[in-house]
């Protein structure tokens, strides 16, 4: 029996649910594997020794998260950074847009429904000042981004790993799976998503709506664009962006819109109405993305 562990750090638990979303295949998986540790499902309180495959989801937010991650690494043969938070910090990384003091104030002292109070500090674990993707604080064997990874991918990757086979991991961007038509249009305005009704057949970027499909790793089957919603980049940066030092989500999207519209690059930049939440929403916490020379993350974060 292959021994599996699931550990969550600062996360939403969507990653754990994505494993349960194997549905009936979960039973097949359990033919060859045993869940030895998973606080969401089983009552084992301490991380056991000799884990074969451990999945860690979420980002590192406090000392307790950090301690558990270190222990899990030590006790696991294969450690997978599972989901976009573990790989790049995910949405939780947006907290880095504000200083810790600003955040604390909003929650406990300057909040319309709360009696102003001190920040809790008894028994609860000490917090770290910024968000760290789990994958940056431990040696990782596989990075598997996705918010959460889709059940098809989970099946195609987790089951071969359990059977000791090499998984086949897709490498394309979201655009590769999107059926919308990209075309050059003489438009001169970026639209907010609440303005107008986008044509369901045409590429969002070609219509002036910000869509990150071309800059995002696609293992999702372009589900959002099929449902009428532009890509928000939840799968993490595309391999092209990860590999090329001068490629970044921001410059990739700005230059694509420039090519598709009649706006000069400067005008596109001027009209870009939000960068922190819209462009870097899922990777603000990532040093890989922050350390690129062309990255705007250093200008956005407050440490």
């Amino acid at each position, binding site marked *: 029996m292959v021994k599996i562990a699931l550990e969550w750090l600062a996360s*939403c*638990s969507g990653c754990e649910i994505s494993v349960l979303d194997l549905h009936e295949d979960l039973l097949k998986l359990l033919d060859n594997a045993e869940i030895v540790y998973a606080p*969401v*499902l089983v009552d084992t309180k301490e991380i056991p020794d000799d884990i074969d495959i451990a999945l860690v989801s979420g980002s590192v937010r406090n000392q307790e998260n950090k301690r558990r991650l270190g222990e899990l690494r030590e006790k696991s043969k294969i450690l997978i950074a599972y989901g976009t938070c573990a790989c790049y910090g995910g949405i939780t990384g947006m907290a880095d847009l504000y200083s810790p003091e600003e955040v*604390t104030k909003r929650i406990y002292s300057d909040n319309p429904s709360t009696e102003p*109070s001190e920040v809790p500090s008894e028994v609860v674990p000490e917090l770290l000042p*910024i968000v760290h993707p789990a994958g940056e604080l431990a040696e990782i064997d596989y990075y598997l981004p996705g918010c959460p990874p889709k059940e098809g991918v989970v099946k195609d990757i987790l089951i071969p790993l359990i059977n000791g086979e090499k998984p086949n991991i897709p490498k394309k961007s979201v655009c590769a799976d999107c059926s919308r038509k990209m075309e050059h249009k003489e438009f001169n305005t970026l639209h907010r998503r*609440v303005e107008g009704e986008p044509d369901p057949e045409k590429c969002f970027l070609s219509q002036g709506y910000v869509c990150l499909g071309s800059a995002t790793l696609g293992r999702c089957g372009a589900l959002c664009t099929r449902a009428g919603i532009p890509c928000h980049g939840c799968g993490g940066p595309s391999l092209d962006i990860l590999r090329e030092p001068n490629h970044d989500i921001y410059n990739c999207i700005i230059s694509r819109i420039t090519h598709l519209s009649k706006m000069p690059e400067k005008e596109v930049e001027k009209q870009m109405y939000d960068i922190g*939440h819209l462009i870097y929403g899922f990777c603000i916490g990532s040093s890989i993305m922050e350390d690129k020379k062309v990255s705007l993350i250093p200008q956005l974060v407050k440490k």
Partner: protein
Amino acid sequence: MKQIEVNPVTRIEGHAKITVQMDDDGNVSDAHFHVMEIRGFEKFLEGAAVEEAPRITPRICGICQTAHHLSSAKATDAVFGLEPPETAKKLRELMLMGQYIHSHSLHFYFLGAPDLVMGPDSDPAERNVVGIIKKDPELAKMAIKTRAVGQRITAAVGGKPIHPVTAVPGGQSKALSAEERDELLKDARNAVELIENGLKIAKPLFEEYSDAVESLGPVKTYFGGLTDSGKLSFYDGSMKIVDKDGSAVHEFEAADYLDYIEEKVQPWSYLKFPYLKQVGFPDGNYRVGPLARLNIVDSIPTENASALYDEFKDKYGVAQNPLLYHYARLIELMYAGERAVELLEDQDITGTDIISTINEPLMTRKDAETSDVTMRGVGIIEAPRGSLIHDYQTDGAGIIQKANLIVATGQNNLSMDIGVRETAKAMIHGDEISEGLKNRLEMVIRAYDPCLSCATHMLNGESPLVVDLHDSNGKLFKREII
């Protein structure tokens, strides 16, 4: 003095621990439920275009993501003054039924039931869903199938099973095709049958463990939840509060919540403690979620669930015992299945008029800087774990200036804390504390199905603990956290 710890509390969503303090005579002097984790959504939503909130906030929780998605979308409808077309409202309600079918069956079968099916004192290595798979594979398959129906509904209506995206200000971005409707209708009818079978197995457990039902987590409180003129309603309605005897004390609209609800901070938990403002803390302690909803409504408007509700009310009246949350959850699971069938049988559900849009372009961010215009929207919904409020204030361009969230689990925080303490005091004497006894403390927490991912949407760090080492070119080469 000695301290007993249960850490982490398992088979719940998120990070928590229980501590029990013993005096020198071996009696419990105090006990608490501590929520250990926090993130920061209320702050980091600031600066985001408000229409982005419905796709940012589902990441608060991967289990009740649809509830956040919809409460957030309702808040954005209000910000822009948009009324979604009827079909859009029905699609949203259907998506919410998918949420309930998934979340309630996840909680009962995968998290809560192992304590009752395997027994509170059973081997902890077996006391989980894998144990159930081994002991009763048919029951496990039924659980998996029921939950899968919920996820399929969410995927078809919301675009994805986890973190749906289709609710936008003014309506929905995706219509439901006739083929999708046909598939889902088959699924939903099948789910009603599966739930019926599940209830046959589950109901006797509350008799079998009536001692635990009566003794674990005792507390008496007010209750709150949405209702549509006295009927159970998850997507819309006014918020009603009843006292411990079931008499109505407040009924108010979402936008007025600040007149009725206030939150207290305690130094030993990151999770705040909401209470009824006009009663005060701690007497104004109220609970939300399945049991609260059955206590505030007069009826459930679907056939099977209505019969189950009557039977439950006859037996328990205004129910206070936390373990009855499980029972109430199963009754609601039936309602969600039946309501999904009703919505799918409704001709409107495949309609294509699904969005109302704003008539003129938004103010630019630059113009908003010099304008006094502000907008505000409050959304409220019944999440599986209870009432969920999203409140956004924006500038004239619809950029969020302030956000406030009151999540379901917070509203049960004080009752979980009291429940743990009272249970510990009644059951723990002397030094020998069995594993089964510790598990009973966890059972108190589990009954509420707390979602600490939701509850800990709040904040981030305080003091600098990171050491960055840079090379001579100023490039970061090592980051240490101490």
